[in-house]
C-alpha cells in the first residue's frame, strides 16, 4: 500500500480506488479554483494511475460547482487559490482539498504520489509555511473518518 506523507505528521493510505481532480489551465494548476473551467480527473487504483481525462466544469455558482464535482466522484482536489466560502462548500461535500498549490500538472501529480506535495516548491507565492492552512484542507472530510479502505498509522 502506498502512503502519502502530509506535512510529516500524518500518513494516509491511498484507498483501493480513488479519484483526484486538479483544475487545469495551460498545462498548470489553475490559479483560482472558483472559476477554473476545466479539471483533470485522474483515476487511481492502489497508487497507480489507470485513467485520466479532462472534464469541463463551466458552473460558476459554488454550490452547482460542488455538486458537479461530487457527481464526478471526486475524492481529492489539488488546487491553487480557493476562496474560503468555496473551501467550506467543497469540504462540506466530503471532498478533501489540498489548496494553494501551483506548478505544471505533470510535476504536481507525480509529487502528490510520492508524498512530496507539502514541499515549498509547489506552494503558491505568499503561502510558504502554511502548516495550519494545509491541515484545515485535509481535515476537510469533516469527521467522516479516514479515507475509504485506509488505515491511519
Amino acid at each position, binding site marked *: 500500500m502506498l502512503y502519502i506523507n502530509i506535512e510529516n505528521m500524518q500518513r494516509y493510505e491511498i484507498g483501493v480506488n480513488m479519484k483526484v481532480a486538479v483544475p487545469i*489551465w495551460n498545462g*498548470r494548476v*489553475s*490559479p*483560482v479554483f*472558483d*472559476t*477554473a*473551467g476545466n479539471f483533470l480527473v485522474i483515476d487511481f487504483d492502489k497508487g497507480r494511475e489507470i485513467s485520466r481525462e479532462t472534464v469541463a466544469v463551466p458552473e*460558476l*455558482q459554488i*454550490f*452547482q460547482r460542488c455538486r458537479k464535482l461530487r457527481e464526478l466522484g471526486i475524492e481529492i482536489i489539488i488546487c*491553487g*487559490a*480557493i*476562496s*474560503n*466560502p468555496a*473551501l467550506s462548500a467543497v469540504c462540506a461535500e466530503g471532498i478533501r482539498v489540498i489548496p*494553494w498549490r*501551483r506548478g505544471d500538472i505533470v510535476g504536481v501529480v507525480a509529487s502528490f504520489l510520492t508524498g512530496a506535495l507539502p514541499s515549498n516548491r509547489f506552494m*503558491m*507565492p*505568499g*503561502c*510558504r509555511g502554511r502548516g495550519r492552512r494545509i491541515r484545515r484542507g485535509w481535515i476537510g472530510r469533516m469527521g467522516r473518518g479516514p479515507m475509504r479502505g485506509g488505515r491511519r498509522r
Partner: protein
Amino acid sequence: MSEAEKYADIILDSIAEGVFTVDLNWRITSFNSAAERITGIPREEAIGKICAEVFKATICESACALRKTIQTGEPIVNMEVTILRVDGEPVPVSISTAILKDKDGNVIGGVETFRDLSEVKELRKELKEKHSFEDIVSKNSRMLELFNILPDVAESESTVLIEGESGTGKELFAKAIHNLSPRRNGPMITVNCGALPENLLEAELFGYKAGAFTDARKDKPGRFELAAGGTIFLDEIGELSPAMQVKLLRVLQERTFEPLGGTESVKADVRVIAATNQNLDELVKKGRFRQDLFYRINVVRLKLPPLRERKEDIPLLVDHFIEKFNRLKGKGIRTVSPDVMFALMNHNFPGNVRELENIIEHAFVLCQGDTIRINHLPDYLRPKQGAEKMISTARNLEEVEARYIEEVLRRNNYNRSAAARELGIHKTTLWRKVKKLGIKLPSMDGRTRKERLKD
C-alpha cells in the same frame, strides 16, 4: 540603479494603488508596496512568478484584462473584479491596464494597477441596510416614517390596525411589530379571517372541547390560546361576519373567551394586530362593520402605501428578490436589463410587492444567463409588438406623430374626445393635427350620439 529609477520606485511605493508589471511571458517584473499589501504577497515572492498565480483574479483564466489589452492595444479602465488574498478572502478590486513599450515602441509587456474596493463595498452594503428594516425593503419616505415609529408601537402592546392593498407587506409589518415587542419570544399566530366560513372560524379562533359538535373527539385549543404570551395577527378583519365581530369585540374588551362547547372562560393573554385591504371607515358607514369594534382595533393605525406610490423602491426590491431567489435556487443572476427595469417602473402593480416577487420568480425559471431580459417576463408586462415596430420604421418626427395619433384614435374607436384625452391635448388641437398630418378618418367615427347631435 539610476537616480530616476530609484525615484520611480519611491513614487510607486507611496501610492495607495497596487501596481505591477509583466513581461511577454506573463512573469511579474515589478510589484509595488500597495500590491504587496492588498494581495498579501511579499515582493520577493511575486517577482518572476506567473502573474495569475500571484494576482489570482476570477478573470485570470477566462478574461484576463492584461491579455486583452496586449492583444487589442486598448487599455482597460476601472473594471471591477475579485481577487483571492492569501488567506482565502475574496477582495473586490478595480483594475486598469496599459501596454508597456520600450523607447523604440516595441511592446515589452503590460502594467496593471488595482484599487482595493473593500471599503466602498462595505459602504454600499451599509447603504443598502439603511433601506432594510426587519426584512422590509424601502427607501420611500412614508415607509421610513413607519419604520421610525414601529419600535414604539411594538413596545406599547396596544392593538394595531394595518391597512393596505393586498401584497403590500401587512404580514411583514405585523411580524416586525411582534419581533420588536416585549412578546418577541412568544408565538405569533396568523389567522386569515376571510379564508374560513364563519362556523369553522369560530372553532379555529376559540377552540373547542370534546363533544362540542360531531367530529369533536377531543379538546382542541383555539388560535387565541395558541398565541398565549405572544401575538395574534388577524388578517382580512373586514371579512368577519357580524356575529363574529360581536364575539371578537367581547374578547378585546374582557380579555377572555369561551371555547365552543365549554363553559369556562379562558384568559386571552395576547396582543392583537389586525389587517385589512378594505376601507374600514366605509364599511362602518355602510353598517357592515361594527363601530365599537372598529374603535377597539383602531388604537394605532398604520397605512401602507401601495407599490405604485413608491416606485423608487422597485429597483431595491428587484435586487432583494434576485438575492433571495439566487440563494434559494442556487443561481447566479446578477441584474435586470434596462428595458426590464423600464417595464417594471411603468407598471401599475395591482398586486403590489407580491406581484413583483412573482414576476421575478417567473423570470428565474426562464433566465439561464446572469441578466433577466424582457422575454423572461410574463406576457402582460411586455410592450405591444405592433406599436414598437410602427414607431421604429417611421421616417421622420412627423410620421412618428402621425402614426402615434392614428394608433391612439384606433384604440379609442376613433372617438375624438377620448383620443384627445389620452393624448393629453385639446380636441381642437387633435383636429388640427389630423388635418395637417393628413390622417385618414373613417366616415363613421366613434363620436357618441350626443356629440354627433351637437355638430
